[in-house]
């Protein structure tokens, strides 16, 4: 996030796209609700009706995968109506001309045809965004989990840069991180192209620094990203170390992956619960939960905060950092680290953006006036107070780069054989592979099993009624779930949550990855739904939710 969570409530315009914030980031959603209560205008772009669309001034219900059309058309309006921030563009950006040229071809009328959003709504949203000073954009996996996810992000960044909505409070471009420490894992260098602190592995000086620090020779070649690793499993890649992820549940097109995993020669799994990946593991190392160890998580707004040990791990299990030190030692390395604080110091002191942060400083840091703790990086020295929002006064890379992007259709769209468009996502009550939440009796009662949302029209066509067991099929596999007939989805679209091991949505999803990030197209693939012939799972009801408590559009018609 370029800006901070606390600034959301003071925004005057919020553009939420590809984020079901109330379910995936409930506490950030509270700030958004607060802003709306205080008079801010909320615009939500999402193929589904979600909680936030209820309080939004406008819901731009776009066809899945047509984000570039919507965003370029908004840019079209801003450019053609002269709503750009000329001074900002001249001083702080480059590449504007090319973008202005490209978006000329993306008229709102044409966009209406592709996205399904009325041209007038696109115009209204573009004008309102461009002409409101405190206007923030908030997005998450609905933008990135596409084969053209990077294009989506560029298109959003273009809007931010051409309107100058950067470098001030309550604006900017704000990806909401899905997991507790997505930011921290990237910050720490668990990426194929960066050492800690986004220092490139192919930068000679950086490599020399770490070679000197660690006393070994380091590879100058960037590594494979996760999507590529999964595709090369069993071929180029023959050995895996996996910590804290159930790749067999979480990765797309898993049936193909399972077949490849059988050809992997060796896999080490470090985990707290048995999971699907364990079937392929040669060594399993029992690890620890967050309350059983010391460390630091970094949240969406670059805030480093302490995680503290409250209880012992179960007898026999060890803290993950301890296991990693033990494994390094068993592999012949002699590392000097003794405590998480030591480890953190090595991580932070050699990455300029983090150099001012240490466990000791985080522990000494009290709450600020809003109750927040920790430090937001960049924080280059021990006296630096941290950074609430980025790009103040000047864009960090010198010039903000506008990148012209063209619409590319999603990799796999509905056709005669698979007539529906499947998107996947998350729900409020579960968390990713749900190894934790499904072991909680309460969260599990509220949402006990897998379901697929489909529009009444599509349900009727297939003689499916609400609560029927159904089979969902794609070119990659099929699973069973309970039908939830709902107007939350558009006609022609279906939606599933990915949390349920007995109905793995990722059997269905497309593993085509984005060219830059490798992030797979979880949000769009072609699917078909039929009544299940031999359903063996449990039937369950849908407990109360915002969408069942008397909202007109969902009332039986």
């Amino acid at each position, binding site marked *: 996030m370029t800006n901070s969570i606390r600034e959301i409530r003071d925004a005057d315009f919020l553009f939420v796209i590809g984020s079901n914030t109330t379910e995936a980031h409930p506490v950030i959603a509270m700030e958004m609700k607060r802003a709306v209560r205080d008079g801010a205008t909320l615009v939500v772009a999402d193929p589904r009706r979600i909680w936030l669309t209820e309080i939004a001034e406008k819901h731009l219900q776009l066809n899945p995968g047509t984000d570039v059309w919507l965003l370029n058309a908004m840019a079209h309006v801003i450019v053609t109506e002269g709503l750009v921030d000329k001074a900002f563009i001249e001083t702080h950006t480059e590449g504007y001309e090319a973008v202005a040229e490209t978006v000329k071809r993306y008229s709102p009328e044409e966009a209406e045809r592709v996205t399904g959003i009325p041209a007038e709504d696109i115009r209204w949203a573009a004008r309102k965004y461009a002409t409101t000073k405190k206007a923030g954009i908030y997005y998450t996996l609905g933008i990135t989990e596409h084969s053209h996810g990077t294009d989506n992000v560029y298109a959003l960044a273009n809007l931010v840069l051409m309107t100058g909505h950067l470098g001030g409070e309550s604006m900017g471009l704000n990806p909401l991180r899905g997991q507790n*420490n997505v930011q921290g894992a990237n910050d720490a260098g668990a990426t194929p192209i960066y050492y800690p602190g986004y220092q490139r592995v192919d930068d000679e000086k950086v490599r020399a620094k770490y070679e000197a620090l660690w006393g070994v020779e380091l590879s100058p070649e960037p590594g494979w990203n996760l999507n590529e690793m999964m595709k090369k499993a069993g071929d180029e890649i023959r050995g895996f170390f996996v910590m804290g992820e159930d*790749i067999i549940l979480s990765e797309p097109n898993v049936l193909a992956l399972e077949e490849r995993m059988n050809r992997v020669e060796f896999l080490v799994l470090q985990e707290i619960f048995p999971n699907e990946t364990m079937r392929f593991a040669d060594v399993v190392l029992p*690890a620890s939960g967050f309350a059983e160890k*010391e460390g630091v998580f*970094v949240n969406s707004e670059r805030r480093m*905060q302490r995680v503290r040990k409250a209880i012992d791990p179960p007898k026999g299990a*060890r803290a993950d950092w301890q296991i990693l030190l033990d494994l390094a030692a068993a592999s012949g390395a002699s590392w000097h680290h003794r405590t998480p604080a030591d480890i953190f110091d090595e991580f932070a002191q050699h990455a300029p953006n983090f150099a001012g942060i240490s466990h000791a400083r985080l522990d000494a840091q009290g709450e600020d006036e809003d109750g927040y703790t920790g430090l937001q990086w960049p924080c280059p020295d021990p006296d630096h107070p941290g950074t609430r929002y980025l790009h103040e006064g000047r864009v960090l890379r010198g010039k903000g780069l506008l990148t012209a992007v063209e619409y590319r259709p999603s990799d796999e769209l509905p056709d005669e054989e698979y007539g529906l468009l499947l998107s996947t996502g998350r729900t409020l009550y579960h968390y990713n592979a749900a*190894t934790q939440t499904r072991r909680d009796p309460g969260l599990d009662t509220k949402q006990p099993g897998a379901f697929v949302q489909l529009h009444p029209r599509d349900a009727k066509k297939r003689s499916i009624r609400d609560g029927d067991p159904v089979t969902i099929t794609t070119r990659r596999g099929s699973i069973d779930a309970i039908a939830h007939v709902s107007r939350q989805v558009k006609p022609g679209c279906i939606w599933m949550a990915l949390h349920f091991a007995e109905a793995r949505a990722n059997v269905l999803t497309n593993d085509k990855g984005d060219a830059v990030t490798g992030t797979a197209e979880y949000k769009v693939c072609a699917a078909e739904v039929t009544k299940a012939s031999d359903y063996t799972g449990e039937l369950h009801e849908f407990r109360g939710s915002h969408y069942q408590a008397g909202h007109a559009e969902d009332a039986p018609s």
Partner: protein
Amino acid sequence: MIQRTDQLPTIELDGRQITFHPGESLLEVASRSGVQIPTLCHDPRLDPAGACRSCLVEVEGQRRLLPSCATPAVDGQKVTASPEHSPRIERHRKSLFSLYLTEHPGEDHPDGVERGAPNKLVRAAKAFGAEDWGKLENLRDDLLGDRSHDENPYIQFDSDLCILCAKCTRYCDEVESVSAITLAGRGSETTIATPDGRSLLDTTCEMCGGCVAVCPTGAMGEKKPKTHKMPVEAELEKVRTTCNYCGVGCQFDLNVDPAAREGGGEIVKVTSPTPAPPPPTPQPRGRTGGSTARTRCGKGRFGYDFLHHEDRLKTPLVRGADGELHPATWDEALAAAAAGLRGVQERHGKDALAFVSSSRCTVEENFLVQKLSRAVFGTNNVHQCAAT
């Protein structure tokens, strides 16, 4: 924009001159000046309700006592807020809390509520010398229809303890915008209820537990069996930490029963940090007061049982010649892991290994995985599920 202190307006509070920042309420000015005003229905995240009447103060020129939570400070105002300075305030607090106690069991409450739950009313009643005026019978229904029939596993309402400050319903409306619960009925039969008295599970409730967190008397309480069996709150260790679910990074206190699990400790509930006392200098205010830094969602507040789940992996496992995983010692397992990875490296080259780290683990652990990958096994094939 911070104004210089000597340019700020002032009020006279219990005879002292106090500067304030325009927009501050009398309650805010008082509490940062060390003048204690009792509150039951106040929360900085909520619009002031002025309903509990605990915080009334005398303002010169005003015939009526005014709720300090909802009354903005005005330059030159003379305010009396302490019983020592005002017999009227003294009589007000004493009689108000006496009246409250006629409908409240005070400390004589049977089991059924979590032990050691806070009760601000009982504390205030003691502090201001409330008397026994006799007890009235409780006419109110318990929420969620019938307490015993609501199968929701987390939240219970006990109308005996409820003082109708409506913090729970206001939090549900104003902070969560969920509106699962409401004030229902009228007059002395007013209670907290779900629509048609249904189980919370069958309402829009998202199980955030905010109602429990804001309740001043424990009427909204936790239902988890562990929470009920736990020692009184004073014997619990509170460990401040960061939530392990989404990317917001909420802070909360794990409440640990240190003696449980043979001394290994057990988490019995999660509570929100108590706000630090406000600094004594005037505070500039944003457009809206009270951040959500201390709010929680249901996963954060209640979703910790997995840590104590019987399915946890406790023993290292190594796959044997029979193709099955077998228990092993740590030394055996680590040696097997190192040898296996080295073997692949030797057979297929450094870049035949891939390290999948975890955005669920700490910064330190991610740092170690990439260091292991790069410095020990010589490959940049390291990534994590951030892309997922």
